[in-house]
């Protein structure tokens, strides 16, 4: 007979109220993928779970299998990512990451690789100030990992080698298009040679190497819009947290 209790590491990606003082917590675990569980009494000030099952906490958890939902019996935070919590901008990026992971995953599908990518991205965000780069790298690697790797070497339509100069990108076709195929395609947008090069490199390298690439403001914006469009096409919706992230961004610019 299998034991009812099990242990795992997890990052908390969503919390909802549940009854009087309980929380329904969505976890992204290292061993079981996305799991929904109840944290009993987590909203009471003296709860021993409370702070250890907050959003964007990396915790060691003990859970008990329940009939519908599992129950969190013990929790110990491993990393709270305090720098993220202390910054409004990083926080908005953190909200975005949790929504992204939630949207792209199904419950109870083990995915250690995505867990590691997610955890590393949070660590990078907490350690460096280049949140945009960390988010873009995560988005690209997430797509790649979930089976949506964009075709960036050859034209996604006619398979011809892409030439330097004007090329196009179409989420609908799943990658870059050559000039002949892209021009008549109304859903395609132009993609610069530099953006192509950066994305090709990022698909192969780790984050440290990805940080060596110099990004100008324009290039960074181009990649951001491109990834965003691609993700919106795949999910068939705009993620809710994007709006606030953009709002903070523009307010910051007006300030400066």
């Amino acid at each position, binding site marked *: 007979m299998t034991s009812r209790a099990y242990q795992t590491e997890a990052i908390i990606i*969503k919390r909802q109220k549940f009854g009087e003082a309980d929380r329904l917590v969505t976890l992204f675990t290292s061993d079981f993928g996305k799991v929904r569980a109840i944290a009993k009494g987590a909203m009471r*000030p*003296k709860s*021993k779970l*409370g*702070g*250890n099952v*907050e*959003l*964007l906490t990396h915790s060691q958890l003990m859970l008990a299998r329940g009939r519908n939902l599992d129950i969190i019996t013990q929790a110990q*935070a491993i990393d*709270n990512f*305090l720098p993220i*919590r202390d*910054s*409004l901008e990083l*926080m*908005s990026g953190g*909200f*975005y990451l*949790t*929504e992204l992971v939630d949207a792209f995953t199904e419950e109870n599908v083990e995915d250690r690789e995505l867990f590691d990518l997610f955890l590393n991205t949070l660590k990078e965000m907490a350690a460096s100030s280049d949140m945009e780069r960390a988010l873009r790298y995560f988005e690209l690697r997430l797509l790649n990992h979930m089976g949506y790797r964009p075709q960036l070497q050859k034209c996604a339509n006619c398979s011809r080698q892409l030439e330097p100069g004007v090329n196009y990108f179409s989420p609908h076709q799943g990658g870059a298009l050559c000039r002949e195929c892209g021009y008549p395609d109304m859903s395609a947008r132009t993609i610069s040679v530099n953006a192509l090069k950066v994305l090709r490199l990022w698909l192969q390298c780790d984050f440290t190497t990805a940080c060596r690439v110099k990004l100008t403001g324009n290039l960074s914006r181009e990649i951001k819009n491109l990834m965003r469009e691609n993700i919106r096409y795949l999910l068939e919706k705009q993620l*809710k*947290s994007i*709006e*606030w*992230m953009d*709002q903070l961004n523009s307010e910051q610019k007006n300030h400066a």
Partner: protein
Amino acid sequence: MNSDFLSTAKPISRLIEELHKLPGVGPKTAQRLAYHLLQAPPEKSRDLAEAILGIKENLRLCSVCLNITDSDPCGICADETRDHMKICVVEEPIDILPLERTRKYRGLYHVLHGVISPGDGIKPEDLRIRELLDRLGSNSVTEVILATNPNVEGEATSMYIQRLVTPLGIRVTRLARGLPFGGDLEYADDVTLSRALEGRQEM
């Protein structure tokens, strides 16, 4: 309709059905309450009925602090003995109760009616932040105390408001985050404990 109700007189089964819609009231509790009310003196039933109607007919939001009130401005805002230079910002009307219970705070309140929660699509514009800034612009307020809940959304909301209020030259403070009375160090999470260390006080 439930077959149990067929043998019951119509007014009673209607009452049972209505009570059953309330949170935490199951079918058995609903039945027990209904029969209890049936036996209670008529004026008791009338009092209850009036109390229920009263919350719908007489309550509105205070035009100053947006707390739920039966008079405008609300009792707290109208109280001249309170300190009108301090405003304590809370998420929901219900959060005022525990703060009042402490009897330590004699200033005014401002109810946001929510908290920034990007995952649920709740943005700053959906809260009553504009009203707070209007209050600060027209009055001689010297301190804004942020008393949103000590969780991720509450912190984000406080940071956001702090960013808007500080440039106005008004002192912005945040409720201390630390260990609960009667709690246990062993079970304190790292965030709470590190904030408690940061905010330690001379004895």
